[in-house]
């Protein structure tokens, strides 16, 4: 028996948590809101979602084949990227948009920088930003949700443009009866998914909590404590989707405990600045992307103090 004894360095046990389990949990958490998007925007939304996911998987497999690496498509990470991108697209986009977007997200943003864990910005968001910049018209054509909806504009669009149409009711905003990207509208179902991720320990409340908290506080201040308007802001423009599912992307957020606080506050601040003083009605995507870029620097300056080390 001697030779069959396995010898390795300690520790000799490992937790049951795996990358695959984490990514699968994220996929599960996104599904309710995605499904609601299909219900809301119709079959076209489903086609867009499927195209994004399938293209993401194909792009991942292609890159790894070309570089003769082991295929890792079963770790669910490409599925998460594809799904997030799809959920961040309007349902009216031409069908080549999700395909181009997913290839960009996976091949350029993720794989070109070394694959899983090496993307310095969120691939889905980067792809969306690229698409908006390249094809602004296609990317901002919104579908009216209900036949009686007067305009297809999003709630934030209405506020920004000062359009003379009624804002959706807070209740509609909460359950998601409004225009917007496929997966960003239902705060209720996104929060349900987020609760699942929190319960499974995949994300911590820290980043989304501080992000939304900062945003809420500043919006209250700017609007002169207009609670109604502040709530409209929180519930629309993909803030919930962004805060819980994209700002928490492991690879593109800081890893130090202090760094994560700075990062989250920064996103809250930027989102307010863009929404209230910038040219775009939204701002969540750009805020996250900007803070993604800053994350390595933040990490560098927030190294945790070693136990018993000098202050």
């Amino acid at each position: 028996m001697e030779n069959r004894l396995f010898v390795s360095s300690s520790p000799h046990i490992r937790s049951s948590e795996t990358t695959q389990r984490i990514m699968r949990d994220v996929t599960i958490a996104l599904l309710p809101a995605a499904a609601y998007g299909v219900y809301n925007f119709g079959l076209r939304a489903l086609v867009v979602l499927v195209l994004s996911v399938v293209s993401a998987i194909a792009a991942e497999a292609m890159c790894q084949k070309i570089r003769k690496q082991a295929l890792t498509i079963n770790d669910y990470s490409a599925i998460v990227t594809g799904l997030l991108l799809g959920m961040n697209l309007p349902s009216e986009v031409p069908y080549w948009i999700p395909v181009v977007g997913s290839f960009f997200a996976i091949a350029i943003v993720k794989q070109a920088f070394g694959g899983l864990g090496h993307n310095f910005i969120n691939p889905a968001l980067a792809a969306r930003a690229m698409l908006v910049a390249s094809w602004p018209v296609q990317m901002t054509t919104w579908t009216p949700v209900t036949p009686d909806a007067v305009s297809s504009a999003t709630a934030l669009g209405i506020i920004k443009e000062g359009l003379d149409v009624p804002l959706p009711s807070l209740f509609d905003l909460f359950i998601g009866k409004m225009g917007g990207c496929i997966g960003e509208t239902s705060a209720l179902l996104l929060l349900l998914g987020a609760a699942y991720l929190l319960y499974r320990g995949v994300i911590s409340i820290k980043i989304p909590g501080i992000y939304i908290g900062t945003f809420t506080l500043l919006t209250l201040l700017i609007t002169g404590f207009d609670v109604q308007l502040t709530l409209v802001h929180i519930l629309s423009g993909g803030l919930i989707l962004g805060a819980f599912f994209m700002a928490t992307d492991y690879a593109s957020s800081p890893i130090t405990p202090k760094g994560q606080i700075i990062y989250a506050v920064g996103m809250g601040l930027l989102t307010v600045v863009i929404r209230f003083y910038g040219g775009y009605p939204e701002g969540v995507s750009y805020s996250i992307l900007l803070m993604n870029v800053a994350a390595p620097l933040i990490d560098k300056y927030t190294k945790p103090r070693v136990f018993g080390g000098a202050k």
Partner: protein
Amino acid sequence: MGLLTFKGGIHPPHAKESTEHLPIIDFLGPKVVEIPLRQHIGAPCEPTVKKGDTVKVGQLIGAAGGFVSANVHSSVSGTVLDVRKQNTAYGFDTCVVIENDDLYEVCETVKPKPDYKTLSGKEIVDMIKEAGIVGMGGAGFPTHVKLSPPPEKPIDTIVLNGAECEPYLTCDHRLMLEESEKIIKGLQILMHALNVKNGVIGIENNKPDAIAKMTEAAKGTEIRVVGLKTKYPQGAEKQLIYACTNRSIPSGGLPMDIGVVVNNVATVATIGNLFETGMPLVERVCTVTGKGIKSPKNIRFKVGTPLKALIDFCDGYNGTPGKILLGGPMMGVAQFSDELPAMKNTSGILVFTPEEAKLPDASACIKCGKCVTTCPINLEPLQISAYALMHDYDKAAKFNALDCIECGSCSFICPAKRPLLQTIRVAKREILARRKK
């Protein structure tokens, strides 16, 4: 008061159920004991017996090879078959091989010590040194060295480690239940020797019976028994001291730098026993357990008993063994063979099945940061590991690799199953090797 603890850490499965309720049983059976002359950190001992000599229990067979070293005594009575080099858990060392005559005749030098209150600190420390007592929690550091701090480092607190935070192991737990008086006595002796008023015993709260028993035994003394949160590595020196006294050992420092001496409960029970009976460290309790063992047990064995004999005493292996560990699953050391002697610091013999022995394949780091939040020392294991893999040891040193206490929490928690501690160890070794140059 909330439960005392530290920041970070993990919650591995306890896996203590199979032995925590089993009383300690003696194993007197070894036909032959192979007693290594190096069972401690420091210089090996010089043999004081030769082939053909008859020896008795407690007789000196190896004399300490310096101040940082510890005497070795015979654990049985019988005849010395050989003094030879052989494999031990520490490497390839000289061992005294003794044929056990099963009489357990006690050596004349073994006599109860005088009342400790009549002794000076130096006399007590000398007796402990004489008795070859080492840290029995795992490291095997000679106890008398710990008890001889330089005069500029006054000690005001002695902390006993009863945390037993390693999964599977239950020997300290059983000892606290069955020999609480010896532990209290031993601690009182140490407190007297160092002229210290503060004695604290820290026990994880998954052992409420041990906390109750020790509290009971400590009644009427100055000793405090404190419940600690059940969390790994609660029993690591820095974490234990922090939880029990709220003091932090400075980076790169020792407990004595903040006036504390830490000892394991098993070590202190042996000291209690030494003063009661005069018997040096020749036996100890260990937990033989794991799915690979037929009937797990808490066994008091004679130092030098072959592992195989202890395993057979537990009805042998359960199928083919996959991995044999000395110690627990977090910090224990995997062995190449079961043909090794159990030693003074063997707190556990853990046998895994071949399935349990397999480690999952590592995949790319997903930068989840779990290793960072988990590290009880606040390191960034992913960074140290990454630089170690790139052979950039200067960078690894900048990320404080040397502060790592090798608890393994980071490797345990990593979802990508990266060999974090393994690579950090390489970095530590390289950094130290370069500093020496």
